[in-house]
């Protein structure tokens, strides 16, 4: 079974600074997807960024980028130029790429605080 681990329950960053959230996962699959989701107090889950395991290049979406190390099963999210609106729970998630198992397996989350 796949597992996703986030060892940082809480992180804090100053506005305009950079922060990195960490995630490790375990799987025997070679092809899969990894995600970072953001959940603000409104509860709405928002996809931040996606990484396909077959791609060596790290995904980037504006201020958000990942460090994907497949051999180490490590997947981190870097938020640059942090903004107050980035404050939220961040969940790392895994999904197999094929078959009917499209379900997402989530980590326990990291609460990010952004301070002035």
């Amino acid at each position: 079974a796949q597992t996703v681990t986030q060892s940082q329950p809480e992180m804090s960053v100053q506005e305009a600074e950079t922060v990195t959230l960490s995630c490790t996962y375990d799987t025997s699959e070679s092809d899969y997807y990894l995600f970072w989701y953001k959940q603000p107090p409104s509860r709405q889950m928002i996809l931040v960024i996606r990484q396909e395991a077959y791609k060596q290049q790290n995904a980037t979406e504006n201020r958000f980028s990942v460090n994907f190390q497949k051999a180490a099963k490590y997947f981190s999210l870097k938020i640059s130029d942090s903004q107050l609106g980035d404050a939220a729970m961040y969940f790392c998630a895994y999904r197999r790429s094929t078959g009917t198992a499209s379900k997402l397996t989530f980590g326990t989350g990291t609460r990010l605080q952004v301070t002035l």
Partner: protein
Amino acid sequence: SAVISQKPSRDICQRGTSLTIQCQVDSQVTMMFWYRQQPGQSLTLIATANQGSEATYESGFVIDKFPISRPNLTFSTLTVSNMSPEDSSIYLCSVEDVAGSSSSYNEQFFGPGTRLTVL
């Protein structure tokens, strides 16, 4: 992208009663999912609901406790039956939508959730 609404957004219920949560999508989708998020916890999949077939439940979740309906490609309901305080959670509906005609990747979108409190 798919836009998802859930009703109710929140409810407070008495022990032993049942609550049905509705999930409405603005487009036709094949796969719908129901997740539970207990207070301060991560999301756990309850079941996958495909139109025209029985829902597939994850380990630890049973149909008698969480019956699901999927009458068409835009709508699903989850019922939380015979509730106890341990059922107090946020229940989220999620759908899988095709990201693009040339893409083999199907993105998942989430509804706003239903916050359930059982007294």
